[in-house]
């Protein structure tokens, strides 16, 4: 990856790509359905990536990667890693069936969803990854989103793929270790990378990484991995910030009342306890979890 890409100032997705490629190396082909990164990579004839990159249609991330893998296999190339790099829209919503189909066949590729929690490059429209309570241009004003964020990792785990993990741009060591681990595994691997978006989240660009860290520390976005659909490992025990400390820094949540924030805190606690149970760890009680 080189400078001169056109990501917004403070773009979390750009940081995600940096860490990902640093751990993966350059022997890879990247398939990219429509997403912010389709723009960030640069307009023709420029590219900010030093690996082959195929821009493809929104819904085809899983399918195109399957085809590229098959072509490499026919050539006898077993060393090149095939990666699909998609946003949350191309993963949670539009590309979901192709992704589900590819991982159901256990295609040998890494699927990375860098998650900025809405359709950001088209102007901040809500996706099924947008969290409960968030403002977007399609959930404006008092019509803020009242559906919970889809748990995409659990959907992938349900396919019993060899490896599924969450990672955050605020924890580079954890992220890169997971990329290295995924690279060494054969079959479908899924990485869900939390990538903050200063533009869409209405946050100052300098807080981009800090916010991503807080998402982990509040248990809103826990760092964990699941092997073969059954073995859960939680990679980081948070210090336990309150959810409201994360929310109050972001313009997209500024309309929420204390009552709303308590409800969200309860949802986060519930999700965290669910994860602890799956990891075989004791449940925790109280607001400060």
């Amino acid at each position, binding site marked *: *990856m*080189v*400078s*001169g*890409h*056109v*990501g*917004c*100032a*403070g*773009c*979390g997705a*750009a*940081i995600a790509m*940096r860490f990902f490629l640093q751990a993966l190396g350059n022997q890879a082909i990247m398939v990219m359905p429509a997403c912010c990164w389709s723009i960030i*990579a*640069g307009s*023709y*004839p*420029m*590219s*900010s990536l*030093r690996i082959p*990159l195929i821009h493809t249609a929104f819904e085809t991330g899983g399918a195109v990667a399957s085809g590229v893998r098959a072509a490499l296999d026919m050539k006898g190339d077993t060393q090149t890693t095939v990666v699909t790099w998609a946003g949350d829209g191309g993963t949670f919503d539009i590309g979901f069936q192709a992704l589900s189909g590819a991982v159901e066949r256990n295609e040998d590729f890494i699927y990375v969803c860098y998650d900025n929690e809405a359709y950001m490059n088209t102007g901040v429209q809500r996706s099924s990854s947008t969290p409960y309570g968030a403002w977007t241009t399609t959930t404006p004003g008092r019509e803020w989103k009242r559906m919970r964020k889809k748990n995409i990792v659990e959907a992938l785990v349900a396919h019993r793929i060899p490896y599924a993990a969450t990672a955050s*741009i605020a924890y*580079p060591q954890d992220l890169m270790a997971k990329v290295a681990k995924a690279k060494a595994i054969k079959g479908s691997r899924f990485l869900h990378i939390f990538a903050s978006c*200063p533009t869409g989240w209405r946050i*100052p*660009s*300098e*807080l*981009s*990484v*800090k916010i991503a*860290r807080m998402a982990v*520390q509040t248990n809103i976005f826990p760092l964990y991995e699941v092997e073969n659909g059954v073995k859960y490992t939680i990679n980081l025990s948070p210090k336990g910030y309150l959810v409201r400390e994360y929310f109050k820094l972001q313009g997209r949540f500024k309309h929420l009342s204390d009552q709303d924030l308590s409800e969200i805190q309860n949802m986060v606690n519930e999700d965290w306890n669910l994860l602890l149970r799956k990891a075989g760890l004791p449940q925790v009680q109280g607001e400060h979890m």
Partner: protein
Amino acid sequence: MKAKNNSIRLPERLLISRSYTTSESNKTGSWRYLMPRYYEKTAPCSVACPAAEDIGRIQMLNTQGFFKEAWDTILVENPFPAVCGRICFHPCEKVCNRGRFDEAVSIRALERFVADTAQRYKLTSGIEPMAFTGKRIAVVGAGPAGLAAAHFLHLLGYDCHVFEALPEPGGILRWGLPRYRLPLAALQPEIERIRNSGVSIYCGQAVGRDFLHSAGETYGAVFMACGAQRMPLLRIPGEDLPGISEGLAFLCSVAQGGGPGFQGTAAVIGGGNTAVDVARCLRRLGARAMIIYRRRREDMPAFAEEIELALLEGVELLELYAPIRIEKEGNGLRLTLQQMKIGAMGADGRMRVVPDENRIRELTVDQVFKAIGFEAAEPWHVPEAGAVSHLKLRQAVLTQGANSVPVVYCGDPVTEIQSVVHAVASAKEGAMALHVLLTGGTAAVAETLAAAAVGPGGSLSMEAFLKGERLNRSSHVVAYEEINIDHFQYAPRMIQPRLLQAERVASFAEIDLKISAGMAIREAERCFNCGLCNQCDNCRLFCPDLAVRQEDSKRGRRIDYDYCKGCGICVVECPRNAMVLEEEQDS
């Protein structure tokens, strides 16, 4: 074409648009309206240290195992790391930002470790003094202030002759500090280092008042560093009875290996470090020791840690008792004590004490020691009125008579607090002021010294005075809120290994034991290095635009403003506030 008969003509190669240049031609720096830059700031510890030691940098060097470099970094500001690493009251640790996170860094123990390591490996300092100015300066007194003055004047390019009345140099360090706090083996190499650097120390050479007038024939200036040795009177009846002695004289005889061993009871009047030292020495000689102090324990000028250790050793403390009379009773002495009570807060921020009606207590002891503070032994040890020029600095006084050379007064008689590190600060300030006076005249003194100040506290840095790299830092003192604590893990402060409690009163052996290099490095790693770049690389790691480049320089990295969009992530993710985000200047 192979498919001659086919109606569809295939192109010779696939027509897929394919990028062939990099995005580097796109100079995204033009988007920027905020501009990050590296900007080192001032750590609170270095402001609180009267000697302005560069503590954040010292710990950074310790972390990397550069103990000699850490030692040199201390020596520029303080010639006595082995001494201050043991007996300093460490105001640095009280303001340590780490203290707000978990516990303050054990700065004093690390200073001692560095000094002990240098002594163990017989290191020689790598500090180069400035070119010889051709001037010779007389220093009166070889205590901490006099020796420090000689050290700093030597660094500034002067030839120093130090005159000491007693047979050995060291002053209070040698004669007044008990060995369990400062062993001779730790002090000797510090004095030898100053001597070996080229300073001449003449012991057994008392200097009289007329020296101030005749010195001009041989010397370009005189430094007065005679300390404060005379005890003021208690002003109570019976204070000159036999069996009543002065605390400092007692400590001096103990330091020389004497010290009357006795089993009786002794009362020590006073609340300063000398009173505590006397009481603890008495315990070691086998006596029962009681400290009698007119205020409360928390009002005692003695360092809290020393009081704590004294009580653990069995010293008794009678708070809020003022002696009003001493009488002979058989072979002992009867003290009449007035019970005191807390009055109003004084203008100096200390609680006043007043007699608690007629509540009187009598106490019979075998011996009484007075340790109620010190003043200069001779009137000419302090700045005299009537000098033509009289410049009062923070910790020193610079005077010049009509027909005489400049005289600098430093050390206890002129410092705000009587401590070793204040004596060092005083000597440093005096040496700097004298150097400016001799090279640029009196008018330049205030301004030049202000430029060498560390933060707003008034502590002066010799490195900054010598135009070293510290001069490039902002005087902004880093607050705890400015530290990005996300990048630090909780870790408890090191526990100082000590002699067992029972062993302490059995001898004069040093109580605080040595620490290992591993322990020192772990403790140094706890330091936030507030405001200083320790090359953690976060700025480069988190940059979304790959605009922080590695380079072969001291810092190891630079910002490429051709591409930096000014998002500011590097500034926020800098754990120690060594960067700043500023508005872009119109170019």
